[in-house]
């Protein structure tokens, strides 16, 4: 697929962005849980053109044994992009970028997982980016915390994440690929809403301190919106199970 050309303007006269969004508007977001059979927990997210699948395995016995910690579970995380997820084929070998993101994503999840309940085990989080469209680390975190919950792992709270950025000198929510590439700054944020805790924060580009503060509050608001959707997604899964159980006819007992 050829790369799209640089757009002339990222914001038009009406203040709308290349995909027709307002500056404070998220891309369409779709969340699903429990769609993989073998994983202990799984989640799928579509945010714009991002398509990301997350599986959680664990708590399970640590392999190799020496990585186990005596007083808590070890969280392991892999953020990985499929070779076909971007314009130019990406080598499937983990890049330095993927290694850094695996680390910061793990660190964004660590504060909420009650790891001390499962000493000497590992909890493995596998994030596969099937298609990437800007903001994939944030979408990955949103889905990863859903997959952890779907695996039934005790957590203090779900983590929601969203990036803000600067395009044509204005702060804009949830940058798409083109906006990230031709914009002036990118600021990914992960938030634990009920703890008021920012667990992922990165930035590149050029921002004044005032723009940073504005961006941070925009991202936090968006995280709260995403957090509500995460909760709904989980509830919906259990409602479906409940309906299925209630609809099932009692088997007749033959004497």
């Amino acid at each position, binding site marked *: 697929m050829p790369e799209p050309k640089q757009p002339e303007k990222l914001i038009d006269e009406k203040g709308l962005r290349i995909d027709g969004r307002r500056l404070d508007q998220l891309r369409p977001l779709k969340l699903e849980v429990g769609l993989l059979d073998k994983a202990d927990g799984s989640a799928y997210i579509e945010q714009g053109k991002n398509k990301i699948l997350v599986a959680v395995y664990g708590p399970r016995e640590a392999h190799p044994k020496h990585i186990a910690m005596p007083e808590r579970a070890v969280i*392991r995380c892999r953020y990985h992009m499929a070779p076909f997820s971007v314009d130019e084929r990406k080598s499937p070998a983990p890049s330095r970028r993927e290694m850094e993101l695996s680390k910061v994503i793990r660190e964004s999840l660590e504060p909420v997982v009650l790891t001390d309940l499962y000493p000497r085990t590992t909890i493995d989080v596998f994030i596969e980016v099937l298609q990437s469209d800007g903001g994939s680390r944030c979408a990955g975190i949103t889905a990863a915390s859903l997959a952890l919950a779907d695996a039934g792992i005790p957590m203090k709270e779900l983590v929601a994440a969203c990036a803000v950025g600067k395009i044509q000198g204005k702060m804009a929510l949830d940058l798409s690929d083109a906006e990230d590439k031709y914009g002036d700054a990118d600021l990914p944020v992960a938030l634990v809403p009920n703890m008021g805790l920012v667990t992922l924060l990165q930035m590149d580009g050029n921002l004044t301190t005032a723009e940073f503060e504005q961006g941070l509050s925009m991202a936090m608001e968006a995280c709260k919106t995403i957090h509500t959707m995460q909760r709904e997604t989980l509830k919906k899964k259990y409602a479906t199970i409940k309906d299925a159980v209630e609809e099932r006819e009692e088997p007749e007992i033959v004497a």
Partner: protein
Amino acid sequence: MSATPQLPPVAKLEQKTVVDLVTKGKRIDERGLESYRPIQIQVGLIEKANGSAQVFLGKSKVLAGIKIETGEPFPDTPEEGVLTVNAELVPLASPSFEMGPPSEAAIELSRVVDRGIRESKAIDLKSLVIQKGKKVQVVYVDVYVLDHDGNLIDAASMAALAALANSKVAKMEVKGDELVAKGGHHQLPLNNHPVAVTFAKIDKTIVVDPSLEEEQVMSARLTVTIDKNGHLCAMQKGGLYGFTPDELKKAVNLAVAKAAENRAKIMAAAKG
């Protein structure tokens, strides 16, 4: 795959001492909460490099060397030179550093230093083009950690900036298909001076420039890289916990002031 790190065992008593002191607004080495350890910078130690600098940040010691060579541009940016930043956690620097492929910490360190230089546009990559699409200057920034006593990000970012400010480039010209040295050197032009400022959260207190002892008890880490206009050009949160929005805003504003102080020291040392 990234796994929860196994921190080297620190005596409980020592952990408690560090935390108790910080809670009282004091630090184990008697600095203020917002003070850096003494910074010493020497430039030009490595004659074979285009530029070099050694930074002592307290007892942390980092050497940065710049090599500028001719190479090919990336196909998607034919009109730009190439900047490559790499950091090595050399095994001689700490009992916790091991041989082998770069660790997650080394990759994070080099990427955070890279982001500061790249995003502040400190090096004008367009000025490194010798022949469009074919020949460009490639700037290698290699950061060598020699002694690890905490806050390697700031030490590495200072060393990289001082080394770049100390760098000279051979004058080149294209004759036919050949690339020849014209003789003579010129200073590598630097458009910006990014400086990283790192904070550690210890219990509920935020301190600047954590030492190794403080890093071992911190719950979270934040690096804010500030350019010469006082704007943010890179940020990175690390560690197993997080920050409240108020802590972040306070840290960012403090970073602007601290970066200006350190920048003056770095640039003065680089000239000398």
